[in-house]
């Protein structure tokens, strides 16, 4: 009874008040659409699920945003097994990847090289049929690194990976679930170095679980990334890849051709401006800020882009 007589006029008034806002919003979105539709098409950037990838995703996202692109972030999607198909199918337009690992993923028979230039040529050949283009790679290399604690290294006198061959059967390896099937992980350790571990424990992709399992002694050898600042901070020993299992895993943005044609050279130029400045040391520095100092990848990326003079 109470709201009956005056409820209807109130509703009418609410609608009347709302109309200008709705119209304004429609006009604004229409204008926005026209503005970005021409030369700066909206872009969706994806990433896999470890912190360096979030930093890289932010670097590309923010430099594009600073140049007037609309960016949708789809980070933390999962392993490459999820992200690469997403790129091909158009659910994302771009992601940052690693030359040799991506090559091994898209072409099981291809062999990468320790020379990034050579790897890039082979990779681009393999990617052309998949409608994907690799842009400029950075000097920054992020390879799989196998680490042990200082205590384990001292006890078993471990310096390089080949030292693991005779003692591997007493040790437990920890890493991402896909490690046993990967050429650059347990599979390669077995075929190239002849290391067979006692057991494998599925943890995360070079993340906190692996670090904790190493510290807690649930695993003896862990897969971390060579650009991971945690290795130095925790005093882990990174075993030298003396038989060069790891290839030139330089960081490179990969973009779907559909999008690249739409966006044109302006987009390419912006993205490629990052590559020359991104060295392993710079990347490790950013990784440390995120993983050890617990800073937001967004802020870390922004500060770095500013420092490098890439954005204002």
């Amino acid at each position, binding site marked *: 009874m109470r709201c009956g007589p005056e409820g209807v006029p109130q509703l009418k008034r609410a609608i009347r008040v709302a109309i200008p806002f709705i119209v304004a919003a429609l006009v604004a979105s229409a204008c926005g659409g026209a503005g970005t539709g021409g030369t700066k098409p909206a872009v969706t950037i994806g990433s896999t699920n470890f912190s360096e990838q979030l930093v890289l995703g932010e670097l590309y996202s923010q430099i594009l945003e600073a140049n007037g692109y609309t960016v949708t972030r789809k980070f933390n999607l999962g*392993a490459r*097994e999820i992200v690469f198909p997403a790129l091909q199918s158009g659910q994302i337009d771009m992601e940052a990847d690693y030359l040799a690992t991506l090559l091994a993923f898209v072409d099981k028979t291809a062999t990468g090289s320790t020379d990034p230039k050579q790897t890039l040529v082979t990779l681009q050949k393999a990617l052309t049929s998949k409608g994907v283009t690799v842009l400029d790679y950075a000097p920054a290399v992020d390879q799989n690194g196998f680490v042990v604690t200082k205590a384990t290294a001292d006890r078993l006198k471990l310096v390089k990976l080949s030292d693991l061959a005779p003692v591997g059967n007493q040790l437990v390896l*920890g890493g991402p679930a896909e490690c046993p099937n990967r050429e650059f992980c347990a599979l390669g350790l077995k075929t190239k170095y002849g290391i067979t571990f006692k057991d494998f*424990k599925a*943890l995360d992709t070079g993340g906190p679980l692996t670090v*904790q*399992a190493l*510290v*807690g002694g*649930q695993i003896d050898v862990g897969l971390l990334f060579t650009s991971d600042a945690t290795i130095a901070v925790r005093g882990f020993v990174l075993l030298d890849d003396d038989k060069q299992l790891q290839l030139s895993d330089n960081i490179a943005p990969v973009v779907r051709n559909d999008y690249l044609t739409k966006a044109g050279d302006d987009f390419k130029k912006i993205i490629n401006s990052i590559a020359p400045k991104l060295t392993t040391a710079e990347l490790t520095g950013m990784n440390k800020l995120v993983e050890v100092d617990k800073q937001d990848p967004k802020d870390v990326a922004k500060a770095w882009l500013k420092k490098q003079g890439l954005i204002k």
Partner: protein
Amino acid sequence: MTLLADVVRWFADPAHYHGSDAVQTRILEHVEVSGLAVLVGVLIALPVGMYLGHTGRFGFVAVNVANIGRAIPSLAAIALAIPIAGTLLGVANGLGFWPTFLALVPLAIPPVLTNAYVAVRGVDSDVTEAARGMGLGEAGILRVIEVPLALPLILAGIRTAAVNVVATATLGALVAFGGLGRYIVDGLALQEYDRLFAGALLVALLAIAVEVAFGTFERAAVSPGIRVQQGAL
């Protein structure tokens, strides 16, 4: 249909019955952590629930507090359990079994507590009054009158808890625990859907087995007189 064939092939592959990733090992790990979590949950929730049901006080508060266990997403509980297990039990225990266990116990408590409270509270007051009149003490009333009468509901609560816990223990795979969740998490990471599906199937079968086992136990444990009464109701 090819997925189904792949799953059958997966189960037939002898390689899946060896080593630390063997099906029987994973089932055992799964049963172990679930069983212990339910046991501890029951040890905590059952006495509290029965006592509150008997006195009839603070039941509303207790049931609602326990229900927080249901409201916290299990995924968050398991992630939170890593630092908690690490602090309480030392770094070495911060992964694997203990965080999984710690996250599952709060999940086991609400159905047990709620059912025990409601069941004991629901015992006809004429019966308890009569018992009191005949000189039975409070503990005696609980033991001889209330618990036997409340047993079907109490057991149903434990059964619900057990099925929930078995299904949720799969999340342990995210914190480096084994169990059947390993197949699901690793299957997703590797895009090996046969492995993923096999894991899900095993979890479902285990949950059904628990359900059936409890059902059988309930029928055996509940006094025939009450069974008749239930039937009449």
